[in-house]
């Protein structure tokens, strides 16, 4: 769909066409589910892993597995090099000024909890306000609820536009006040697919002296994210959503800010000197990496970041805009009973993500996804860790199809046909036409 005629052997990543030609890099995609070829459209929940990431993991465990930062022997030195090189690859991927600004954590959830329990605990007082939105993932709601319960801070939630397709920026602006200490918003919504106007939000937050955290779980895998121009003070993301292993993710923060944050978890690696009753702490990022880290996983995350950078995140984004638009348009055309959430492609200057959460009138999302699974099509159903947003949308759950760089227009066709069959299947039962 993107580049053409790259049939030469071992092309450079930046010349590999996305979509079908990329599928050979993802061994898992070549399988049948319920007797039908797998169509994996649950990428917003987790992405699949290219060979280069699997190889990085395998090399770690079969060539140089050792604990990091502690040993002088050859395996340990190599493991340390690879681990720190992975941190640098992530820094490069998001254009961080220094790899010291990248803290390796388990997942984006831990990263947000880390900020809430360090910067938050030290800087948020009774009556201070934190601006979130009704479209946040639970990971960007619950940590602030726990902080607010401890400190007496007040949570304010940006509401949706009247058509319920994206965050209402006028409402956001009206919530800002000198009491606003923090704005923490989702960069790309995992249900609506809408993209935040980060520059505007950053400018407005800065104007009232508030810090800005962006949940980039759904942006880092899919578009260029450059922390030097994004305007955020912290961003968080999970490796498993951008072609990396599970069990690892990162927090990026401006270095002065990280330096101002007290440690959270205590243990090995995060210390300078330990005495029986007190200790001194290492500078960031080590200060926030207590204990043996997710070594192989971080190395896999670095490999994923490097691989995606090689593909070119502008190309990734362009491909996803194309397939995302196709997905939206075909899905919306299946039946008048199908409602797709979020902005219509083209209606928004910043575009929309290549995911489509939807419902079919008269059918439960779980029933829809169960029947799609019978046709080999993997989509998610449920509240997608966004219960408040589903309350706003007036539904208990939704189904969601989310595409990535290896999905093809042909797969979208299979999904859409299976959905039409599914609707017909339930209609038939109700009209009594079945055997």
């Amino acid at each position, binding site marked *: 769909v993107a580049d053409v005629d790259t049939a030469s052997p071992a092309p450079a990543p*930046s010349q590999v066409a996305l979509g079908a030609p990329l599928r050979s890099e993802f061994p898992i995609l070549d399988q049948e589910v319920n007797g039908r070829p797998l169509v994996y459209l649950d990428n917003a929940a987790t992405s699949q892993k290219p060979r280069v990431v699997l190889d990085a993991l395998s090399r770690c465990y079969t060539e140089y597995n050792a604990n990091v*930062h*502690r040993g*002088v022997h*050859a395996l340990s*030195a190599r493991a*340390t*090099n690879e681990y*720190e*090189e992975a*941190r*640098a*690859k992530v*820094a*490069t991927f998001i*254009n*961080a*000024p*220094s*790899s010291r600004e990248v803290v390796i954590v388990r997942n984006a959830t831990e990263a947000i909890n880390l900020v809430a329990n360090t910067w938050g605990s030290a800087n948020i007082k009774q009556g201070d306000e934190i601006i979130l939105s009704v479209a946040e993932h639970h990971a960007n709601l619950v940590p602030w609820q726990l902080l607010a319960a401890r400190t007496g801070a007040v949570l304010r939630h940006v509401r949706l536009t009247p058509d319920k397709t994206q965050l209402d920026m006028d409402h956001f602006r009206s919530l800002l006040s000198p009491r606003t200490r923090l704005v923490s918003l989702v960069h790309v919504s995992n249900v609506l697919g809408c993209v935040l*106007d*980060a*520059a505007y939000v*950053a*400018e407005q937050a*800065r104007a009232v*002296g508030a*810090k800005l955290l962006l949940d980039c779980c759904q942006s880092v895998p899919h*578009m*260029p*994210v*450059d922390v*030097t*121009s*994004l*305007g955020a*003070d912290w961003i968080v993301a999970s490796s498993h959503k951008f072609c990396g292993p599970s069990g690892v993710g990162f927090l990026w923060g*401006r*270095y*002065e*800010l990280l330096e101002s944050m007290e440690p959270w978890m205590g243990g090995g690696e995060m210390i*300078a000197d330990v005495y029986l009753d007190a200790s001194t702490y*290492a500078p960031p990022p*080590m200060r926030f990496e207590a204990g043996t880290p997710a070594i192989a996983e971080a190395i896999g995350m670095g490999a994923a970041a*490097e691989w995606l*950078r090689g593909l*070119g*995140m*502008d*190309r990734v*984004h362009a491909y996803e805009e194309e397939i995302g638009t196709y997905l939206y348009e075909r899905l919306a055309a299946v039946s008048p009973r199908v409602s797709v959430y979020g902005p219509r492609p083209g209606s928004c200057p910043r575009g929309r993500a290549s995911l489509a959460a939807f419902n079919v009138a008269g059918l439960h999302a779980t029933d829809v996804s169960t029947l799609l699974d019978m046709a080999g099509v993997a989509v998610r159903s449920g509240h997608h860790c966004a219960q408040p947003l589903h309350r706003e949308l007036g539904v208990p759950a939704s189904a969601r199809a989310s595409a990535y760089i290896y999905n093809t227009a042909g797969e979208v066709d299979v999904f859409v046909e299976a959905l039409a069959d599914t609707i017909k299947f339930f209609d038939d039962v109700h009209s009594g036409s079945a055997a």
Partner: protein
Amino acid sequence: QQSRGISTCRAQKTSEFPASLQKIVGAFQMVPDPMARYKQLLFFATKLAPMPAEDHVPENKVEGCVSQVWVVPELRADGKIYWRADSDSQLTKGLAALLVTGLSGCTPAEILSVQPTFIEMLGLKQSLTPSRNNGFLNMFRLMQRKTLELVAAQAKAKQEEAEPTAAVTPTSNGNGAATAAASGAADVAPESLTPVQDGMERKLTAALRPRELSIQNDSAQHAGHAGAMAARHGKAGASGETHFRVEVVSEVFEGMSQVKRQRMIYQLLEEEFAMGLHALSLVTRTPAEADKAEAAAGRG
């Protein structure tokens, strides 16, 4: 393409090292056997002059080593630096001795222009990964930091004797507005829109005590830049900080070649900014050179 987090710029050639260091590299390269190289390192350790007890203090200690290491510089009247060092580990003491021998009698500029990559030429399996417990790298960096401190202190002392405060001329091209005054390094607001530029300014001001410093953000001009770079910058809306022009006038540059000056600034900004800067266009002049250039411009 290598990732920028760890890689330093291209390895220096031996001919670019101070003569004292060239000798050491040569000596190690003549020994083919790794165990013999370790033996040689231990001989270096035995030749290291004892370090006085009063030098074994926290401010001289290299952080993050499993073994204890101390380094102390002395800037003598000849304008050159002489080092003392010690360690409770014999191999680390050997590395310290090697650095003491290789970098004593060098000018600050020479010391600052050395890249740590030379250690790889010695065949001692020393890693260059920045890590808390990379004894060699942490020792080398502390030595460069102490050199910079001496240079800065000296420049400041001279300045206070003779010169007015250096004037910074922030000029902006496009959307990258320079924000802080020359002396304003400490009070740069943390929510600055231009963290890279502020940091460059802070660093260069502290280390070079420049008579003039101009930092110009050309990033906007490069927003259309092809390939992966543009992908990371062109889309995000706000101002990137990727391409800069820096003009600096400082007497620290006296007697240094252009290459060494540039390398010194690269070194200064390496750890903090190398990864954020895609392109740095540098004009480095001594006060005398600057006056001459100005005069020439006036004529032209």
